[in-house]
């Protein structure tokens, strides 16, 4: 009699889907008595579906995100405490980089299996065409922008129709202006949005606005990829998952460049942004023992190595090996040397409602910078409401 383990996944795109199938196959090979049943959901639909299946028909393992994104489920008692798995397998050491993101009330609520860096992706051909070099300071970056503008090229592109791309931009401006700790305080609701320190971030933000692609609010992040690919834009602040799209568009390891977001305040230790994807056990799981086995399995360095090679992302386990893709390597290098800290992402660090309001504010600011005061007032009110609960 075999034991059944139900796993709900959001890996609807072909590459991740294959990666997870492999993961499951490997797990079953090691545990022949366990039968893993995978339910694959549409990537976007998963975000709403999880609410329902957690309460109505809980599986044994679910996919989710670290940080504040998992907080509502933890608070509602829908996720199981998996501190014992962490303790048993020494994960506090091997997964130390994400320990804080996985911890609420001193307990761990899931196991991270992958993450990926954000940073500045650039079109080297455009740089060459305009005759400038990538700059690692903010002044240098803005000076380059001036040059690109003169050449009729968007210095920085993005597609903010879905809002979240601009959150990456804001996160970096914030991390570079006020540092990681401050950024965490901000996303934890400890700093008023009307504070001067916040304005300082937006002051830097405003400097780059003239060089951002017009109509960014009308397009999706994939459209902005085309801008970069077609040489209409020079830089794109994005997550590493976009590399596949850049390459699909015809860019190569040579023409596509990557760097860490430029320094604004040199006194501040460099922090980076790297969202983490995680696995959790629902409180209502029918087979929690095998689920814990599965989580422990997914935390193992060798497993993470294989899985992330297939995903094209970075393993969380410090003992795992990073794939040899140059962008992955660069990202791994960048993250492992980030002394300032590693942020998840605005919508994982801040509670969902704040995240939504914030991202809308960022987008509005990019279109109408003159409304900054009104936007900050609004965000402050939202902060007071959201964190009060």
């Amino acid at each position, binding site marked *: 009699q075999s034991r059944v383990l139900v796993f709900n996944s959001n890996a609807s795109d072909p590459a991740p889907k294959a990666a997870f199938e492999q993961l499951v196959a490997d797990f079953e090979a090691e545990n022949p008595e366990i039968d893993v049943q995978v339910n694959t*959901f*549409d990537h*976007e*639909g*998963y975000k*709403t*579906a999880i609410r*329902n*299946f957690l*309460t*109505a*028909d809980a599986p044994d393992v679910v996919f989710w995100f670290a940080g504040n994104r998992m907080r509502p489920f933890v608070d509602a008692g829908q996720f199981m405490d998996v501190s014992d798995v962490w303790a048993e397998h020494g994960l506090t050491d091997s997964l130390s980089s994400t320990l804080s993101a996985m911890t609420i009330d001193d307990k761990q609520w899931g196991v991270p299996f992958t993450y990926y860096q954000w940073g500045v992706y650039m079109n080297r051909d455009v740089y060459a065409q305009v005759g400038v070099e990538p700059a690692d300071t903010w002044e240098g970056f803005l000076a380059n922008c001036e040059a690109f503008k003169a050449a009729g090229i968007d210095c920085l592109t993005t597609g903010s129709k879905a809002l979240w791309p601009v959150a990456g931009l804001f996160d970096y401006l914030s991390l570079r202006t006020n540092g990681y700790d401050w950024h965490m305080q901000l996303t934890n609701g400890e700093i008023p949005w009307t504070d001067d320190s916040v304005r300082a971030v937006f002051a830097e933000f405003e400097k780059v606005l003239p060089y951002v692609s017009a109509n960014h609010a009308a397009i*999706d992040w*994939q*459209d902005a990829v*085309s801008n970069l690919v077609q040489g209409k834009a020079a830089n794109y602040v994005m997550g590493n998952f976009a590399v596949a799209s850049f390459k699909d568009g015809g860019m190569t390891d040579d023409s596509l460049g990557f760097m860490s977001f430029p320094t604004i305040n040199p006194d501040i230790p460099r922090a980076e942004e790297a969202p983490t994807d995680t696995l959790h056990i629902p409180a209502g799981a029918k087979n929690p023992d095998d689920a814990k086995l599965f989580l422990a399995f997914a935390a193992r360095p060798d497993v993470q190595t294989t899985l992330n090679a297939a995903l094209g992302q970075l393993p969380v386990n410090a003992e795992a090996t990073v794939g040899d893709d140059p962008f992955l390597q660069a990202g791994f290098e960048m993250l492992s040397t980030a002394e300032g800290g590693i942020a998840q992402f605005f919508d994982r660090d801040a509670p969902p409602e704040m995240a939504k309001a914030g991202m809308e504010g960022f987008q509005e600011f990019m279109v109408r910078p003159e409304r900054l005061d009104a936007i900050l007032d609004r965000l402050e009110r939202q902060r007071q409401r959201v964190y009060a609960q």
Partner: protein
Amino acid sequence: MFPRPIQTMSPAAQRTYKIVLPIMLILWLLPLLGVAMTSVRPSGDLAAGNYFGIPSRLAFENYADVFRNSPLAQYLWNSFRITIPVMFGAVALSCLTGFALAVYKFRLSLLVFFMFVAGNFVPFQILMVPVRDLTVDLGLYNTITGLALFHIAFQTGFCTLFMRNFIKALPRELIEAARVEGVTEWQIFWHIVLPLVRPAIAALSVLVFTFIWNDYFWAMVLTTGASTQPVTAGLNSLNGQWIAAWHLVSAGSILAALPPVLMFFMMQRHFIAGLTLGAVK
């Protein structure tokens, strides 16, 4: 201008009318024609910036691509699996309710009738939270059954309004004549009323088909994922995947629009009768 048939106007006016007519039509359907054209444009044309010119060739493979690279076929199939049972269910229920409300005089008759009518008009957003909950509780969340059950219930409001008014317009004497002859109420319903409201049933079926096929909101609320979502919701998620692939979006849109359009063409008379008789959506 209305009361004046064009035939009584000058030949020049008649000729102008006949020329303006197709021009108006083309302008009116311009967005649709544009999309239809895009749907057969090879992706190469789009990449080369040929958005409006003559397509370099007719790329019907776009349609094949849509089926090959996406679960559109599944979505379409889901749509049928939802729409057709709802069509039967809602029409059947409303024949019963419409009969009861049209034929019997009882104290609450008007009240019940207005309840159906008002329910049909409510912004369905107000139903969203409880209905979603109910569906989750019934274990029907993300199932075709769950979505169909709701649609049947909700459409019953409109369909009752429609059937009741139609049955009410039948001569009362037909029913009285049958009663005098000792025909039971159920027999009256089955042997007399149902055969006589066949045109209404046809009209209603076409309408319900279109309404349900085109529903998007409830599909978003009660289903997730390709195994259950109808083509409207499916198209939305595909739209997320097909960024910048307008030829595929267009082909998908055309495919999603086809069944109700065909239905309309085949059942035009019933459709229009339904709209104007029921007069409400």
